[in-house]
């Protein structure tokens, strides 16, 4: 391709992500975004002005070499682009799809000042997809065997990235996972239409090819304990995620039709309830019904958009604050609106009501207004006296976050946790107070992001390697 001048670069418009028509996609489970083709990717890559001191790299929690991989795409060297990405990010096909780019790498891209940052996420996804579709996912390089054994507890992004790094350092790695499928939230939480499950499984397979051993159906704490693992393994990494659903603690929450987002999404994603009765796991009949989802994060958006796809007549978000405070990725909110999700804000649920058979039929809500900022700096919702509404609904999904699952801490009493049950670590090494035990991801930070969990897994791998060498 002929050299283009800086002036020409600045004229290229950001390339929108091609996607399924909102009316059509709102009723199917296929991926919403199609991804760039090669020509579009090269054109978008050409927008990057290759800053000598790139802000974008600092905006990425794992410091992906963004200008370098983008240059490779601009040069048509797609395979190189994928390799460069993988030096810092074990799962680029996943992060390109689910990272909140608008508050990370793209937020600080120099072109963001003019309103249209380089589409870093879309390009990341392109490179990773290109590699997978054209030459297959490259298993990590396997280093000279050290004879040391590491157990990884939890097969989510934290555990997988830790496993990938440790196997390339030459250690033997075994991943223990409670569920029957590896991938954590990537498999049971985030829906197919946002992150196809095949992509996650290809990544898992590539780790398997590199020699990582996977043991599903093993609940550590019950099937075996951390202390028992320490007898057989030189070190243990705990990446069990934030898997304890919070409820609203309001009357009527146990009525039939009230779900935690974890249960709702697990039934649909992991157990494939949307194909029922071809798959055996059912989900409450949502067709032609009114569904209300409580929350404003990614999980809430996933649940509400899933409801549309299950045939809901009306799929509603109910949020205590305003749209500005919603923690979900901007793209998810935008997609949800396009698909016809109804957004109701400044509403706090007070009570669920049901019929004589115990089936949910309404929610009573308190209208709020915004008051003074709270500890998080967001303006606090304040109830408006007497402003109470009742809305008929058939299904409610509570998506207000997750706490830490207590199985590991209960069965490992000498492992230090804080008052919320999060494992306490030294943040530079991911070391816990227990010798040979490291931890990272949501179980340490509380519910966060895929890239932060992977970053933590990676930091832990480095310090486990040092620990094993010094042992």
């Amino acid at each position, binding site marked *: 391709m002929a050299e283009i001048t800086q002036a020409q670069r600045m004229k290229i418009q950001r390339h929108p992500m091609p996607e399924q028509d909102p009316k059509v996609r709102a009723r199917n489970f296929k991926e919403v975004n199609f991804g760039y083709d090669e020509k579009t990717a090269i054109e978008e890559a050409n927008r990057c002005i290759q800053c000598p001191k790139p802000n974008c790299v600092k905006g990425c929690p794992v410091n992906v070499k963004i200008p370098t991989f983008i240059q490779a795409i601009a040069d048509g060297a797609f395979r190189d682009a994928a390799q460069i990405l993988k030096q810092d990010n074990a799962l680029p096909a996943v992060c390109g799809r689910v990272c909140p780019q608008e508050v990370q790498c793209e937020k600080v891209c120099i072109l963001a000042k003019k309103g249209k940052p380089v589409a870093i996420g879309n390009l990341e996804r392109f490179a990773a997809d290109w590699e997978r579709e054209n030459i297959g996912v490259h298993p990590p390089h396997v280093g000279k065997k050290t004879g040391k054994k590491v157990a990884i507890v939890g097969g989510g992004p934290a555990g997988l990235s830790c496993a990938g790094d440790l196997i390339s350092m030459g250690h033997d790695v075994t991943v223990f996972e409670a569920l*029957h499928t590896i991938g954590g939230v990537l498999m049971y939480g985030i829906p197919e239409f946002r992150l196809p499950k095949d992509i996650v499984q290809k990544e898992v397979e590539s780790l398997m090819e590199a020699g990582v051993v996977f043991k599903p*159906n093993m609940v550590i704490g019950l099937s075996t304990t951390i202390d028992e693992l320490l007898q057989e393994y030189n070190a243990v990494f705990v990446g069990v995620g934030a898997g304890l*659903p919070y409820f609203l603690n309001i009357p009527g929450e*146990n009525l039939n039709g009230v779900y935690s987002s974890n249960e709702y999404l697990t039934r649909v994603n992991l*157990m494939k309830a949307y194909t029922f009765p071809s798959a*055996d796991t059912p989900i409450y009949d949502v067709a032609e019904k009114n569904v209300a989802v409580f929350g404003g994060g990614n999980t809430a958006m996933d649940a509400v958009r899933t409801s549309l796809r299950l045939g809901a007549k009306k799929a509603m978000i109910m949020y205590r604050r305003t749209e500005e405070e919603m923690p979900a990725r901007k793209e998810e909110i935008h997609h949800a609106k396009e698909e016809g999700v109804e957004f109701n804000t400044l509403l706090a649920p007070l009570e669920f009501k049901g019929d004589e058979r*115990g089936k949910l039929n309404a929610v009573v809500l308190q209208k709020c207004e915004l008051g003074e900022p709270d500890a998080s700096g967001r303006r606090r919702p304040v109830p408006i006296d007497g402003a109470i509404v009742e809305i008929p609904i058939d299904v409610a999904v509570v998506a207000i976050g997750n706490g830490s699952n207590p*199985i590991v801490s209960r069965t490992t009493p000498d492992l230090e946790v804080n008052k919320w049950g999060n494992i306490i670590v030294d943040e530079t090494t991911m070391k816990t107070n227990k010798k040979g035990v490291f931890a990272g991801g949501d179980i340490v930070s509380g519910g966060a992001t895929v890239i932060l969990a992977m970053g933590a897994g990676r930091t832990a791998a480095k310090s486990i390697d040092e620990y094993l060498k010094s042992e």
Partner: protein
Amino acid sequence: MNKIIFAEFIGPDTKMFRIDAPLIAAKQKPGQFIILRVSPEGERIPLTIADSDTKEGSITIIAQGIGKTTKELNNLNAGDYIQDLVGPLGKPSHIENFGTAVSIGGGVGTAIAYSTAKGLKHAGNKVISIIGGRSKEYVILEKEMRDIADEVIITTDDGSYGKKGFVTDSLKEIIDSGEKVDFVLAIGPIPMMKAVADVTRPYGIKTVVSLNPIMVDGTGMCGGCRAVVDDKTVFVCVDGPEFDAHKVDFRLLTQRNRIYNDQEKESVENHNCRMLKMADEVANG
């Protein structure tokens, strides 16, 4: 994948399996359960570990075929494999020497009560076992119970075997006979467990039941198995499955177990359709 070592019907639609699962066998304690999936498209269902054999490295489970998954399971035989098996899950039964313990099992509940009853005996209790069934064929594990219990009472609804009547009638008789009952374990259909709780409540006899809500993961991740005990919401898979019978909200448990009734019917019909079609194909093939 776990191999079935032994399988045999022990009652109508009720089948006993010994499954190769050495890790679970070594860890299992009375009152704990496993979750299994029969096939790759299968549902995850909880079943109690009725017994284990650490020498053979096997666990025993007993399933009553009431819906799609349990019927599919009951079609399997020795040599077949179970797709996934995870456990032991849940808290073990609280076992101590109470004095005299009555273990009550209704239908397949006897299978669930068995390992705890055995544990109670080992802990030094006098164990009286009441086995209830609709009729003679539904009385299971009589021999096994006789091996561990000090006394075994059998009741059938129609009087075709043992005493005619309900398990609660026999429990009342024991209490009224002056026998000091210190502990009651009751496992079976929800109305039976509720009835037992109602019998023992006025006497203040410590009574424990094992709850059977619908589960998914069995690790406390989904909250689908929630029940209300002592006016508080609990997750049965991690906080139970055994709870103080006098504090359980049985009405809610019944109600929540009906969530998928309409859909389950569809699933079984679909299954039957497939079976008929297969039969047709075989016949015409």
